[in-house]
């Protein structure tokens, strides 16, 4: 049967062809506006923009660009602190009282004057709403009952902060650089508080503006937060009331883009100025493109493999040591984490006070075998490891599985979703776990505390530090870490952390592998685009085009 193409079909085919031609005629694309920075960024972790509540990595960047702090890290030397809202500060001789003098004539983006009263109230609300990051302040002895006494304004520009122990001043000041200590506009927030029925869990009759600040804004930073739509967009606008150097661009737009290759294409095409989540392959392509450049900075996150001490085999000191010789650091550094991390075997990331740049371990199967034989495990044994099904941890786990195999240890990888492996880890039911730990605040105590303190090793232990999760019972190290908090002399304090790191390096059940490097690809026409040493120091204020 022969049938000719009928009339209807011809019409349809023609219109389809027509529409293709129309599409082909689309005009060339404009670049991003000259006064706007557009970043492609996966920020699906943001759950709240309230600085008293937010504790997520992406939010840290937004908060630090939109709110001000009393003090900030000195980016030229991150073991030091410089004033932000504070012009100067003094510490009393007994080490308990910190007096901050604010710069004169400070203003919020709203136009309200910024006074010591706002600082005091910001501390008060953070402590009283008591969300995830509140411990950074409450660890100095602040409670809902005493905060108005311990953190108070004595006059318009003087803020006095009283701590409960004579801590090392570097510790106190470092903690005050955390975003939870951001100063919010009291007058503005008070217009938006919602009533709450007090209960045993929450004793106050209002929410201190928490509900409103989740998406609202009441700060004084270089930028104002105009809008956040979850998984879509974050828009920042220049704050003309900013006390420091005014931002170079009028607007910064973060577009949620989850996919590395999508980010790369948009960057190459000039539709975004910065791509924030590039995978190694795309990074390579960016580095070869003359119109693009890469910015990178080591971040305060270390990746490690841990050995649960509840497992009798893994608890043997020789096994712990042997495992440290069974990681192919060189190969991992050259391939799996190329560009996104560098080999680093101590628990304090680079740039933090007391960092110890020592990487004594190398892949040495013979030595490991010897150690295993000493432990009575010459024939090897079987063990499992919970691995989040993402890169680079999966790749590292597979490499480790191979090198362990060379020493006769059979490793079974249990892949799982991130939240799932973490739930298991926190219940201490794993054998081994591969994970990462990011600093909570930019002070050596943050990582020291989690790797070396375990005040109660029972299953009911409330303090779920990494040492606890791996049932590593270390009363001496717990004490040492506490003592380091009270050491006033910075040099001595640094030494104490170095000694703690050496202990973990030698006998801790943590095989620390590398420190994360954050990388961003950007259009070469951008000026001053830099990544900071932490997620809350990725400042966009200085960027211009």
């Amino acid at each position: 049967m022969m049938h000719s193409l009928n009339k209807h079909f011809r019409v349809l085919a023609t219109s389809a062809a027509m529409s293709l031609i129309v599409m082909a005629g689309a005009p060339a694309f404009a670049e991003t506006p000259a006064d706007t920075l557009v970043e492609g960024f996966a920020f699906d972790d943001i759950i709240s923009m309230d600085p008293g509540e937010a504790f997520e990595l992406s939010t840290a960047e937004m908060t630090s660009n939109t709110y001000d702090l009393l003090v900030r890290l000195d980016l030229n030397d991150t073991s030091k602190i410089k004033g932000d809202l504070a012009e100067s500060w003094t510490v009393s001789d007994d080490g308990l009282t910190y007096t901050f003098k604010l710069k004169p004539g400070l203003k919020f983006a709203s136009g309200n004057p910024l006074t010591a009263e706002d600082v005091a109230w910001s501390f008060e609300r953070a402590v009283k709403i008591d969300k995830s990051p509140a411990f950074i302040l409450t660890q100095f002895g602040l409670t809902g009952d005493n905060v108005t006494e311990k953190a108070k304004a004595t006059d318009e520009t003087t803020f006095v902060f009283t701590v409960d122990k004579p801590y090392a001043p570097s510790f106190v000041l470092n903690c005050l650089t955390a975003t939870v200590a951001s100063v919010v506009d009291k007058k503005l927030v008070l217009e938006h508080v919602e009533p709450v029925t007090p209960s045993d869990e929450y004793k106050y009759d209002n929410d201190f503006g928490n509900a409103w600040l989740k998406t609202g804004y009441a700060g004084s930073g270089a930028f104002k937060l105009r809008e956040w739509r979850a998984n879509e967009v974050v828009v920042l606008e220049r704050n003309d009331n900013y006390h420091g150097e005014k931002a170079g661009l009028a607007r910064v737009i973060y577009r949620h883009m989850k996919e590395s290759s999508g980010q790369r294409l948009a960057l190459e095409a000039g539709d975004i100025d910065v791509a924030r989540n590039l995978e190694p392959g795309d990074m390579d392509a960016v580095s070869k493109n003359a119109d693009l450049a890469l910015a990178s900075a080591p971040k305060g996150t270390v990746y490690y493999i841990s050995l649960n001490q509840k497992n009798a085999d893994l608890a043997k000191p020789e096994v712990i040591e042997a495992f440290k010789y069974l990681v192919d650091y060189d190969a991992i550094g050259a391939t799996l984490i190329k560009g996104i991390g560098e080999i680093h075997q101590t628990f304090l990331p680079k740039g933090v006070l007391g960092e110890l740049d020592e990487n004594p371990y190398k892949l040495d199967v013979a030595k490991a075998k010897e150690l295993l034989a000493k432990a009575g495990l010459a024939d090897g044994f079987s063990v499992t490891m919970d691995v989040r099904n993402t890169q680079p941890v999966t790749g590292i786990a597979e490499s480790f599985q191979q090198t362990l195999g060379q020493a006769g240890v059979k490793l079974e990888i249990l892949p799982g979703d991130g939240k799932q492996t973490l739930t298991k880890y926190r219940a201490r039911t794993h054998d081994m776990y591969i994970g990462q730990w990011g600093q909570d605040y930019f002070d050596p105590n943050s990582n020291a505390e989690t790797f070396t303190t375990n005040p109660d090793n029972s299953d009911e232990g409330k303090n779920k530090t990494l040492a606890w999760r791996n049932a590593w019972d270390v009363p001496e190290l717990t004490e040492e870490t506490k003592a380091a908090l009270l050491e006033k002399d910075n040099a001595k304090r640094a030494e104490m952390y170095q000694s703690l790191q050496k202990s973990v390096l030698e006998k801790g059940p943590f095989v620390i592998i590398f420190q994360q490097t954050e990388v961003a690809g950007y259009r070469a026409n951008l000026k001053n685009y830099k990544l900071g040493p932490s997620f809350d120091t990725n400042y966009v204020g200085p960027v211009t085009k």
Partner: protein
Amino acid sequence: MTITETTQTAGRKRARANGAIMGVLRFLVVIVTTYFGLLAVTFFIGRVIPVDPVLAILGDRAPAHVVERTRELLGFNKPLYVQFFIYVKDALSGNFGTSVLTTNPVMVDIRRVFPATLELATVGTIIGSLVGVPLGVLAAVKRGSIADQIVRVVGLIGYSVPIFWLALLSLLLFYAKLRWVAYPGRIDIVNEYSFTPTTGLYLIDTLWQRQWSVFWDVFQHIILPASLLGYFSLAYISRMTRSFMLNELGQEYIVAARAKGLSETRIIWGHALRNAAVPLVTVIALSYAGLLEGSVLTETVFAWPGLGLYITNSLQNADMNAVLGGTIVIGSVFIAINILSDLLYRTLDPRTRAR
């Protein structure tokens, strides 16, 4: 005699009315049980997965007492059946809870993300049907010819190649190389605030507000992901059209029509396709409903803030309120589309209309 006739008619009318009421009741029962089953299954799966929802909300770094307080606040320390009871009670009063990820009430979120998916799926289905049906007809009419083979291969590729791969390749080709379409996302940032998203369907909003240049921008953003989804559904639609058409073309009435001397055009489009259209409506409706669930992979690659991405993201974060809310919406969409295609059936098939 007239009296008995009237009573008979009245009785018949009443019986018909009763039948209708019964029908509606049966329908309601089906809907309620469907919803309840849907809720129960999703709820319990959500609760038995080995993920601590509080951990998902607060992250790994929250101190112990905050974790405890949150657990109590959200009622996770209560027995499972009590939690389910509370959930159903709240849901009946229209409260689907708050998403922990976005901190919005779930329904507010869905009102925001669903139009994005609706728009994409609708354009995709239109493309898929407009191209798929004629291709299927062509393949059936020219069975065994080169054209048939080409349609078959094109369809198979669309159906079997992973859509994210096609998506990335097409982005590379049409966006990066040829620059015919716009980059991932729904709209260019320049146009972000230039219109009011009343319906949330940007194409309609911008047309309505006569923002021609913005409409063009939105069109350039939607055309590639929609074409991909269209291609995906085209594959299925064209295969089904072909087989329905072959079935019809072998029928005796076609032979009769040919014998009568009707033109091929009328036979194919006026008779065969008309009859094939009835089951075809179901095929298209089902494929439309499938796209309305939100195509997770397409939405991910094209940074499309739709329902699929929302639910997947929520699921990964154990944000169960959001997952349950999304499931209910998808369930409703399925039911609605089923009813709609039933209604369409009636207009297309005179035999069902009579009853």
